[in-house]
């Protein structure tokens, strides 16, 4: 099967590239090995200090609301972290101070949101906190299998019964100016977080839970739907296992499921992620890239890969695939003519592009621009 561009990796970087290329009239396919880092998405795009119109348009057209508000967001331990461009559910504050009194609300039996840690963190900063657990009959069903009482399962129920939660909060609320809730709202019905904000007579702050991230799952579903509506082919649960390459030009990739039916294209984008997503692999002797065997920047001596003090910054987290300025991936020091590396697989080899979500979006758009650039000849 032939496409204009085959994208390996279906996370934020791959989907952004896919959507932008489809919109420009190019036919694309995305090969996605299972789900991706969006399942751990905080809701804020790390290292994206500006709000380029292209990015906000791309998300708005997919039905994902963003807001731009340089400041900080509340972390699950009651600390704050810098954040700029975020999903609408994420509250952004100009400074690390969100109010005087907070009511922290969670649900009986839900163990992936740590109310007391959050309260302790905020109290250290002089905020008064009160924790309340809601005991909702609608969630008793889920409690029967406590190991699976997860954010996404709760969010499914909340899409139906969020009004009950608003009613309960209104009853509980005394003189608190802030209500803090776990991010378990708006999985399919994206209007729920803003409706809760309208219904509660205090400022409502949604705070991260342990994975899966509900705003992340929602973002993934909406981006994928947008991509497919634009005519993109999303090969879910398949894996690129090799490629046919000649003179630094990639002709086709081989996948696990399609076997001897190769995916051919003019351009290829590698967006397979970092170590977690297996875009990078390591063994005791080297760190490598499994599909094209690209050059991976790394210290020669293994003992320099890591810092024995676990909580310190770890050098291996910065390692990534080497590229030329236009993001063409290198192998043996030579760039491929039609293969681009984008997203977390770059590690921190490209400090100009940032890290995390910012890196995914910036590098995806840069590679797409390179592909769409009219031929010079």
């Amino acid at each position, binding site marked *: *099967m032939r496409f204009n561009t085959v994208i390996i990796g279906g996370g934020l970087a791959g989907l952004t590239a896919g959507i932008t290329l489809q919109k420009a009239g190019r036919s694309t396919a995305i090969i996605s*090995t*299972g*789900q*991706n880092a969006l*399942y*751990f998405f905080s809701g804020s795009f790390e290292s994206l200090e500006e709000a380029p119109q292209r990015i906000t348009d791309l998300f708005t057209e997919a039905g994902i609301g963003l807001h731009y508000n340089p400041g900080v967001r509340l972390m699950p331990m009651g600390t704050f972290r810098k954040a700029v461009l975020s999903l609408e559910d994420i509250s952004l504050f100009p400074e690390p101070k969100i109010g005087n009194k907070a009511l922290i609300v969670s649900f009986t039996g839900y163990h992936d949101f740590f109310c007391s840690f959050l309260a302790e963190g905020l109290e250290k900063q002089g905020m008064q906190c009160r924790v309340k657990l809601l005991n909702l009959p609608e969630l008793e*069903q*889920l409690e*029967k*299998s406590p*190991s*699976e009482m*997860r954010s*996404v*399962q709760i969010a*499914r129920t909340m899409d139906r019964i969020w009004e009950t939660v608003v009613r309960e909060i209104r009853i509980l609320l005394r003189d608190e100016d802030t209500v803090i809730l776990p991010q378990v709202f708006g999985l399919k019905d994206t209007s729920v977080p803003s409706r809760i904000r309208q219904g509660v007579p205090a400022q409502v702050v949604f705070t991260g839970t342990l*994975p*899966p991230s509900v705003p992340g*799952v929602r973002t993934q579903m909406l981006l994928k*739907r947008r991509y*497919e509506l634009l005519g993109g*082919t999303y*090969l*879910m*649960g*398949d*894996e690129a296992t090799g490629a046919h390459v000649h003179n630094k030009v990639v002709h086709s990739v081989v*996948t*696990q*499921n*399609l*076997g*001897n*039916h190769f995916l051919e294209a003019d351009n290829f984008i590698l967006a397979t992620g970092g170590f*977690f*997503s*297996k875009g990078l692999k390591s*063994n*005791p*002797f080297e760190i490598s890239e499994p599909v094209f065997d690209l050059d991976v920047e790394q210290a020669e001596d293994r003992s320099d890969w890591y810092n024995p003090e676990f909580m310190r910054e770890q050098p291996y987290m910065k390692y990534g695939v080497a590229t030329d300025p236009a993001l063409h991936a290198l192998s043996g020091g030579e760039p491929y003519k039609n293969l681009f590396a984008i997203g977390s697989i770059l590690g921190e080899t490209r400090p100009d592009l940032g890290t995390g979500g910012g890196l995914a979006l910036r590098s995806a758009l840069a590679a797409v621009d390179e592909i769409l650039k009219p031929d010079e000849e």
Partner: protein
Amino acid sequence: MKLQEYTLSTHNFEECMKCTVCTAYCPVLQVNPLYPGPKQAGPDGERLRLKDPFFFNYALKYCLNCKRCEVACPSGVKVADLIQSARIKYDTSPPKWRDRLLASTDFMGSLARPVAPIANAVTGLGVTRSMMDAMFKIDHRRIFPKYSPYSFEFWMGRHEKEQAAFSEQVAYFHGCYVNYNYPRLGKDLVKVLNALGVGVQLLEKEKCCGIAMITNRMMKEATRNANHNVGALAKAVDKGLMVITTSSTCTLTLRDEYPSLLGVDNSGVRDFVMMATRYIYERLEKGATLRFKSDYHKKVAYHTPCHMEKLGWGIFSEKLLRMIPGVEFTMLDSACCGIAGTYGFKRENYEASQAIGENLFTQIRAVDPEVVACDCETCKWQIEMSTGYTVMNPISILAEAIEDKQ
């Protein structure tokens, strides 16, 4: 350095990093609180079961074996295989009579076919269905597929000569459904392949692929069928034939379940077993042509069966349907229909089965197509029963859209 090769765990369970993505994708977990979910039932539970079989949980029977957890897993853990193997290994109670009855599709087909009109009338009766519910716990609300008065194998026997006249040949693994219930699909395949200049022959003798036996823990029977089928496939492959299929579940079973759940080596034949939509797509891609009717028009919504999604071949059915002039195509969002073979027939699963499917049914009603296209026979029964919409295999739509004379 091949260190990793030596540290592979059964069904990759040690690759699980507890990210819980699978639990977000499990259709059962959304409707049945008694099911512990794929992470707990699969890799988490496996760790415990290895210590002590006492930790085996009988609630694993609620698993649909839809494999959506495997498709969603970012770490390549064979979650559904872990769950099914655990059921096979630790649940040593003999399968119920009901389960044996439901899983023995070949046996039931051979019994019912000669008396098809009577069998169909009887299984359609309310009183029969109530009796089956009372005696076997087969849900009385479930509608049984009708039996055909003649088998596909019989029809093929009468067309053997004309099929042999084609210079190119493929073998067809038709499966129980085409043979006993719906020979029309097999005839449609023959029509399309003949239009491409390809003749169709049967395997020397095929048996039920055995998936229903596997999920109902009839391991002896399933392994016997698997060994038989691998032998029959090998004979066709030795003659230089590709083996074409029209059922996504049979295909997944022949290719993947035989080695991973039954330990039957199919490495010599696996790559030669292929869904018809892929085979036809590849021929057209290489330049073969089909003449389509000029006045054909049909509004089609395509549902990707779970096992097709696991095979990763839905793309071929989609591209083929989009290729037909006059087809107005809608891709339905990926969702399980809920029946999962014999699962939805069992009384204890009926309600969960229908609740799982609701997501898909709502989408179908919203699109309001003339037909739903789908490569799986049990999805067909479920969607037709639950929505009233007609379901056609993409091959049948193709057969309908091409000129009779090419």
